[in-house]
């Protein structure tokens, strides 16, 4: 079993009008970094909530790490998958950072003795050790999201969904959280599913799911998705700078590779200019 998530013919509606999620199927490989994009109201966040069992699907099936999600095994599922929400102010329970990370562990009946060392190791991982006794309300947006990430990690989850986790942060906070997500993915083999508007982040992911009007409009590598420029524009999505620049360079005969990495493209351009 190398699928972290498998979704088959998923349907969901909020009210009687129309389907919010209209027959979506996809699968996500273990240890991969998947981004989900789509304009506001396309159904991205609804998918996230369905994966976590926070909303109940109407029909179809969801498998998390090989286990089919249903009402009976919700607890088992939540030992595997966690979520970090958009608004940093909406995810605190504890009165200190330490209590907050402890909350999930208490619910999972972790021994008191073990708990302290777990809390400290995950606080270290997200670089929040010096704030363990601080009140969450006094932290910056980026720091709050780091605590939310530590709380999820502490429960030893292997799949984490980030639901626009950086969209309410300032550029510094955004950078710091994006870096942390990347690190977690690379070093801890966490399967990352990131719902995002940040097209530069999409360029760095392994796979992209494009959602439009509750349907899966496109999926595949970033390269494949961006190459479908017409569809992207129709769905009100951006094409990243690095992709546009690379293709404009190629069109003018500049020899560069098919990279989506800005640093790499910069050094290729420099080599092209400097080495004849």
């Amino acid at each position, binding site marked *: 079993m190398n699928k972290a998530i498998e979704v088959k013919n998923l349907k969901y509606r909020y009210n009687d009008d129309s389907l919010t999620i209209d027959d979506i199927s996809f699968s996500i490989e273990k240890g991969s970094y998947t981004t989900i994009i789509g304009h*506001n109201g396309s159904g991205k966040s609804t998918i996230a909530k369905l994966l976590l069992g926070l909303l109940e699907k109407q029909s179809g099936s969801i498998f998390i790490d090989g286990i089919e999600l249903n009402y009976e095994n919700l607890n088992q599922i939540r030992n595997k998958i966690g979520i970090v929400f958009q608004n940093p102010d909406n995810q605190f329970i504890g009165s200190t950072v330490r209590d907050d990370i402890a909350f999930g562990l208490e619910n999972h009946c972790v021994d008191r003795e073990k708990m302290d060392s777990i809390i400290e190791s995950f606080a270290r991982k997200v670089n929040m050790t010096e704030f363990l006794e601080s009140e969450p309300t006094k932290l910056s947006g980026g720091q709050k999201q780091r605590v939310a990430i530590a709380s999820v990690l502490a429960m030893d989850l292997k799949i984490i969904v980030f639901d626009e986790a950086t969209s309410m942060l300032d550029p510094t906070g955004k950078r710091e959280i994006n870096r942390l997500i990347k690190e977690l993915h690379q070093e801890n083999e966490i399967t990352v599913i990131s719902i995002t508007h940040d097209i530069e982040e999409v360029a760095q992911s392994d796979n992209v799911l494009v959602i439009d009007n509750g349907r899966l409009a496109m999926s595949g590598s970033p390269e494949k998705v961006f190459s479908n420029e017409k569809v992207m524009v129709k769905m009100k999505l951006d094409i990243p700078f690095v992709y546009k620049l690379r293709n404009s360079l190629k069109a*003018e005969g*500049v020899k560069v590779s098919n990279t989506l990495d*800005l640093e790499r493209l910069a050094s290729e351009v420099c080599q092209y200019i400097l080495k004849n």
Partner: protein
Amino acid sequence: MSIHFEKLDHIYSPNTVFEFKALEDVSLDIDLGKITAIIGATGSGKTTLVQHLNGLLLPSKGFLTVNDFTIKADEKPKKIKDLRKQVGLVFQFAEYQLFEETLIKDVAFGPKNFGVSEQEAEEIAIRALVTVGLDPKDFNKSPLELSGGQKRRVAIAGILAMAPSILVLDEPTAGLDPQGAKSMMELFTMLNKEKGITVLIVTHNMEHVLEYCDEVVVLESGKVIMHTDKKEFFKNDQYMEKASIDPPVIIAFKKMCQKQGVSFDSDVLTIDKLVSEVVKKRGKR
């Protein structure tokens, strides 16, 4: 007619343990008729600065003038209602402040408060809703039925209904999808170019500054550290670094090249120009 700050300080909770100087010795002239970006790190005083413009916050020291109005420290401001007709302030996440049953009622609330008759207020509301690009078939809906971006447009229409000559927007594109943000910026550009409205935008988005703004004011720890036109601003990325601002991607890219010994002119700010420079540089060797 102008916007002028003179040696202005703003202190929150003075003479308490929470005392905090949010603005210090701010002197600033903002040109009318332009789009000016106010940038700086979180907590640098951007919101505090703009909330002085319609008398929502009062200076602790110094003064400011907006057109004919002067607001001084230690003096109760006069005719503040008239000032608020001229300066429309749109808060961060303004859509949270919608409260009426329908879009029209929500937007008409402002003009009615300023003494316009009910019917006239509704006509003004309809015009404002059309200006911000909302669909007339939604005008009698509840604001709650709209998407986030549409709701924010309703909030902006509510301010435009008061026909301000100065429009101040505090992070108007935060949380919107890229296309929603883009069309929002295009709306402000239209208001500026076609209706001559002076626009001030608090933002973190440098791509927007690069594409839509004329002037840039940089704040750092409550002080204005720079005020210049856009071109000049992007010539020198020191200020962006100092204010912990992410430069536009094209400037980040040029910087990466510079580290490897290839420098591009500071006025190379579009992909087309960059590509033709690359081709030219190669040809020269």
